């Protein structure tokens, strides 16, 4: 019984992918990126703030990521909901308003 339930969990992980993903984060103004490994369910905003801190740049509540399709991601959504996956290349950007 225990073996069957472990196999079921392994299959679920394989179907959904690993619970964590490793991504490459750039700051637009710098050449050298930093890699991060995060749970897929981590909020974009939390991940962006963590990346900004590692780069030593200040953040405010507008800091987020831009993906390879140029899309600015929603701070309030988890990484997986914004289609961030293993190997994604992200840029740290601000998404505040200006108008």
């Amino acid at each position, binding site marked *: 019984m225990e073996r069957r339930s472990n196999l079921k969990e392994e299959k679920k992980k394989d179907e959904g992918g690993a619970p964590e993903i490793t991504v490459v984060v*750039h*700051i*637009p*103004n*710098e*050449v050298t990126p930093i890699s991060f490994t995060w749970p897929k369910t981590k909020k974009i905003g939390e991940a962006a703030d963590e990346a900004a801190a590692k780069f030593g740049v200040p953040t*405010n*509540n*507008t*800091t987020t990521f*831009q993906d*390879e*399709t*140029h*899309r*600015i991601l*929603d701070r309030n959504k988890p990484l997986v909901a914004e289609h961030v996956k293993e190997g994604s*290349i992200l*840029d740290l*950007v*601000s*998404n*505040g*308003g*200006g*108008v």
Partner: protein
Amino acid sequence: MVPIEVTKATIESELAGIQSYCTRHDWNVTWETDVPRLVFTGKHPGDNSPLCIIAKVDEYRAMPPEWTFRRTPESSNIFPLTPQNEGRNTIFLQNPKVICAHFNRLAYKEYSGPHDNWGGPSNWLNLTDGYVRANKIADMFAVIIGHLKMTAGMSQ
């Protein structure tokens, strides 16, 4: 007045980052030292039409750049269509047609923009939380590209 040599040195210190960002996002950049301006050429991320984004950088960083859009570097100005932005704030004001962000000199009243509440363009690096923040050219360009992604195309 910022001496032109200071502006050139500042831009050149940012060029590696600018070029790196452009390479990642399929844009090209030309640094025209005599104007001085940066000319970004690529495709609109919404409709793939050819697009130039110009940053006129005299007085940078004492003053923010003047950001404008064109089809080619010498054609007349165009502007993004109203964004389909899922309710998020846009930096593209339609009346007047100007990028409304602290990093665009043309957003300030002194340069015919709507904002007389930002302390003037020389205050651009000091604006408070809540506004979009981009203090270097590559950061500004990334914000512009990201907001363009939310539009269907350009006015012409």
